[in-house]
């Protein structure tokens, strides 16, 4: 379990001698054991932010501090669930889930974790299948299971449900919420879908052109009535800030 503090975090890509600012001095405070959704248009910098947090990309400037309670910790376990399942096609579902446990030498513990998450995600029957034998929704479930087996402190999700049909999407949204409520990890969930951001997040952060433009606290509880007036108003406000690139307020660390 860990919180994340971003101080003036910037990322600049070089593109044909030209600087492209992907993240522009972002300040954000993500509390320990909270579920934060980041919403924005394609190319707004949300994926870049997740890739920097998971060390797949280096930052250009600024600081990232991880905390546990009031103490600063150096390297929490962070795992990312990508937009595509990224399963190893030569491994069975079970072995794909085991892959994240490469550092654990105790076979009993490895099997215990894999069994637990196979059961939790209703993948038990498919454990000996290969990725090319299962559906897209099922594959994303395996990718989620692989990450959960790793038992990270922070889970980053980069539009993991983006490629799924609406039914599978709904089911997996609820499963992710259930997992969050049971294991209380810090989850940063990126999406371009305003409804999804509102439904899943306790807080919603809006990004636009590498800037943070809005930050809303929704509700600690996940039992939300998406048709209530309050939620509809929030949705309008969110959509407005996603579309309007003039508003820039990069400091949401308070």
């Amino acid at each position, binding site marked *: 379990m860990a919180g994340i503090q971003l101080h003036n975090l910037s990322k600049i890509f070089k593109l044909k001698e030209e600087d492209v600012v992907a993240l522009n001095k972002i300040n954000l405070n993500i509390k320990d054991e909270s579920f934060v959704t980041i919403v924005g248009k394609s190319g707004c910098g949300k994926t870049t932010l997740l890739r920097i947090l998971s060390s797949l990309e280096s930052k250009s400037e600024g600081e990232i501090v991880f905390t546990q309670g009031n103490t600063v910790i150096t390297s929490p376990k962070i795992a990312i669930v*990508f937009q595509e399942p990224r399963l*190893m096609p*030569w491994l069975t579902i079970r072995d794909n889930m085991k892959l994240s446990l490469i550092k654990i030498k105790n076979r009993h513990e490895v099997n215990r974790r894999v069994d637990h998450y196979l059961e939790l995600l209703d993948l038990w029957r498919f454990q000996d299948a*290969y990725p*090319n034998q299962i559906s897209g929704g099922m594959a994303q479930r395996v990718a989620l299971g692989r990450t959960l087996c790793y038992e990270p402190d922070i889970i980053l999700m980069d539009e993991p449900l983006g490629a799924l049909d609406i039914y599978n999407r709904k089911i997996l949204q609820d499963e992710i919420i259930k997992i969050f409520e049971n294991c209380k990890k810090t989850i940063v969930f990126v999406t371009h879908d305003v409804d999804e951001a509102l439904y899943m997040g306790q807080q919603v952060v809006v990004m636009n052109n590498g800037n943070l433009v809005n930050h809303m606290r929704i509700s600690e509880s996940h039992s939300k009535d998406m048709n209530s007036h309050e939620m509809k108003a929030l949705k309008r406000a969110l959509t407005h800030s996603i579309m309007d690139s003039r508003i820039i307020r990069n400091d949401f660390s308070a």
Partner: protein
Amino acid sequence: MKNYRGVVLPLLLILIWGIGSQYGLFNSFIVPSPLRVLSTGWNLIAKGILLKHLSVSLWRVFAGFAIAFFLAFPLAVMVGLSKKIHAYLVPSLEFIRHIPPIAMIPLLILWFGIGETSKLSVIVLATFFPIFMNTFSGIVNSNVDLEEVGVNFGFTRAEIFLKITLPQAMPSVFTGIQLGLGYSWRALMGAELIAASSGLGYMIIEAETLSRIDIIFVGVMVIGILGYAIDWFFFKIAAYFFRWEGKSNGRDTTPQFIKNI
């Protein structure tokens, strides 16, 4: 039914051949009758001559192949993983790749004599490139997205290579092995025809000097059947090990005629 379509043409040819020989349409000095070829084949087997030559040739192929594999595979992995080595080596390799191993036989004989060394070198030359090129392309074309999964779970570089890059490259490596075996078989026949005192190629060229056309026929057929058998065997192994390669991956290097067997 589909499975039997492949044997129609060979049977038809044998039939025409048999009838032609029976009615004296072909000069039996140039085209011996199928029955004569069969009895010569049987004789060669019974006397152990065929097996002797065959085992010499097979031993050469597998020994040469093993040497080529242990040279080409590690080198391809190294070059595939390091862009710096790649820049130094590739032009030279491209140059050598375009020289047919058979064109090198005179040189190899002058260097190594007509003993085993020159034959093994021909096979190494023929087999090296298919293994090298296919392993190399398997390593270079490894999916970075999958490697990122490893990075994300804290894999070391060695772990990423062993658990992600290499398994991904295996079908390609295997294609290289399969091609390499085919090439080495052909190159060896060339070498044995030019200078050898044993082996299938030698059996054929010796039969030519003795005007034993029937032995030549037996030799040629054994070469064909054996090449086919080796390929089939490898196809079966590949089908077992790479059963995860579904249609979605879109990679299938098996010739259509093998699939119909």
